[in-house]
């Protein structure tokens, strides 16, 4: 396979933060459907959260992604059930292309978290109180470094250490650099064929 070189690993992500508050932020909000009429993911970054960032005349509204303080942030801090709704990978693609390398939140919708993993973006969870404190801290210290330690399941900022959680499979995939599931699974092609042939509905 063309990219079978040394696997990239994501043990930790460090950078400044940006808080986006609210529960049930769905993928239609993260990237409105009209921006998905494309055949590549290029250029999606500028449309992240578009409808809550801009008014009808495309003038910027109050939103963390518009604030000068948060430009260059790479750690997104969110609340509960973030990324619910549509399965569009365009959502994490848009966030990644805006600059996000890790998301810390109370909880994530499953498909969204899986899509993030496919891009090497950790989705780390922590308690509501810890997340709200983190969001407040980022507001007060937009230049401070937030350290998302995937391997040790911690988020560190200032003098605080948050006891966080990373899904086991996700942690292993990121820390060991094995999230390229195409390569992983492609290596088992013979076993796949055996499984396929054992099924009563296939005649492969």
């Amino acid at each position, binding site marked *: 396979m063309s990219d079978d070189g040394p696997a990239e690993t994501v043990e930790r992500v460090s950078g400044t933060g940006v808080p986006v508050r609210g529960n049930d932020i769905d993928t239609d909000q993260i990237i409105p*459907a009209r921006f998905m009429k494309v055949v590549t993911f290029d250029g999606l970054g500028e449309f992240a959260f578009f409808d809550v960032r801009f008014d009808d005349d495309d003038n910027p509204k109050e939103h963390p992604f518009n604030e000068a303080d948060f430009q260059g942030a790479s750690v997104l801090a969110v609340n509960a059930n973030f990324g619910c709704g549509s*399965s569009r990978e365009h959502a994490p693609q848009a966030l990644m292309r805006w600059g996000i390398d890790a998301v810390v939140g109370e909880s994530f919708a499953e498909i969204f978290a899986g899509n993030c993993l496919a891009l090497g973006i950790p989705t780390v969870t922590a308690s509501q109180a810890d997340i709200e404190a983190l969001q407040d801290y980022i507001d007060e210290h937009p230049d401070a470094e937030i350290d998302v330690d995937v391997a040790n399941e911690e988020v560190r900022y200032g003098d605080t250490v948050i006891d966080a959680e990373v899904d086991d499979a996700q942690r292993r995939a990121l820390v060991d650099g*094995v999230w390229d*599931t*195409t390569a992983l*699974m492609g290596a088992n092609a013979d076993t796949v064929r055996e499984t396929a042939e054992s099924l009563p509905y296939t005649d492969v």
Partner: protein
Amino acid sequence: MSEGTLYDKVWDRHEVTELPTGQTQLFVGLHLIHEVTSPQAFGMLKERDLDVAYPERTYATVDHIVPTADQSRPYSDDAAEEMMSELEQNVRAANIDFADPTTGRQGIVHVVGPEQGLTQPGMTIVCGDSHTATHGAFGALAFGIGTSQIRDVLATGCVAMEKQKVRRIEVTGELDEGVTPKDVILQVIRKLGTDGGVGYVYEYGGEAIEEMDMAGRMSICNMSIEGGARAGYVNPDETTYEYLDGRDRVPDGEEFEELKRYWESVASDADAEYDDVVEIDGDALEPTVTWGTTPGQGIGISEAIPAPEDLPADKQESARGAQEHMDVEPGDTMAGYPIDVAFLGSCTNARLPDLREAAEVVKGHEVHDSVRAMVVPGSQRVKAAAEAEGLDDVFKEAGFDWRGAGCSMCLGMNEDQLVGDERCASSSNRNFVGRQGSKDGRTVLMSPPMVAAAAITGEVTDVRELERFEEVRA
């Protein structure tokens, strides 16, 4: 010994191996693709110089961007035309069967799969669309995937997954006249929350589910994801086998009987253990509509819209925002909420029985002056079948627009969109802000008969009262 639930059995049959991540490599029996989420995946394959591993287990259609009025090529929207052309090139190069609009088989991917008989019990089915759970209605394990996973499936015929827990949702009793599967699922999501299903697969069962036709079961499984569950299913039974018998992709004769034995074998054992069981009293349900901007914000038509402060702490803020957006007041019911648009369509509710039920309500009425109303059949076949029984005339005579098959106004990716702050009575699945194409637009989710009733009166209406009103007048 119990072999467990359908989920356990189908999972085991499709397990290839365990990956170093701890995930299972699962063989995919049917991969459905469409124009929105597949082009990037085909692009990734090209970059890596990989071929499609199982083109014969892959099936394509076009739905999200397809215009439902003028479908002549090239499409007037350049972006839509480009996506369509890209899909055509990709499926041609990979030798994948493509139900394009010239075949008479095109339609919403979750309508087309079942009606072709591609969707069968005991299969694993994936698609780059979160409403793939629809196919679970047949006792398949079906779930939505992202584009990188589509790349995985195209290249390897497999998906990497972690096994989930199973929650049995037992819908007891009998649904009243005017109460539909859509009302059941809206109440399930209301009860368990939009994230209540995270980590779970939902098994729907109980008397009310057993009595439902396949279209109804599909409506329920379809919205599993709205409750956070990536997959939902119903155990296959005689209703399932009858539906499948004679479909294009279903073999007949002894082969059918053989397959049927497999289908029967995958149903959950009577003594299967569940990680959780939830009961819904089907007798107590009434037509249900949403008052807010998530599918979990639903109420019975006679119930009062809740005051945010009466909701759990973590739901209060979103309820306040939702009530402001929708312009509704706590204490009111949703009955009487004025509407501008009536949309009957989507992968949730655009099958022939859905159209029949709505037509039954519409018959002899006219669409209210202030409403633009449209019916968008789920597939070209649904459209043809509806026309064969004259449903199109019922809708057209009443003032509905009768359109071509596609996702249409369920999401703002084609010409059918809300304008400004229009209010829409919609048989679709999501009332998210901006979902129907206008960020100020307002969506009220409901069943097809309720959409029909709203179209006639110009406001959210208890369809049962509409009928009663008719009887009195007659």
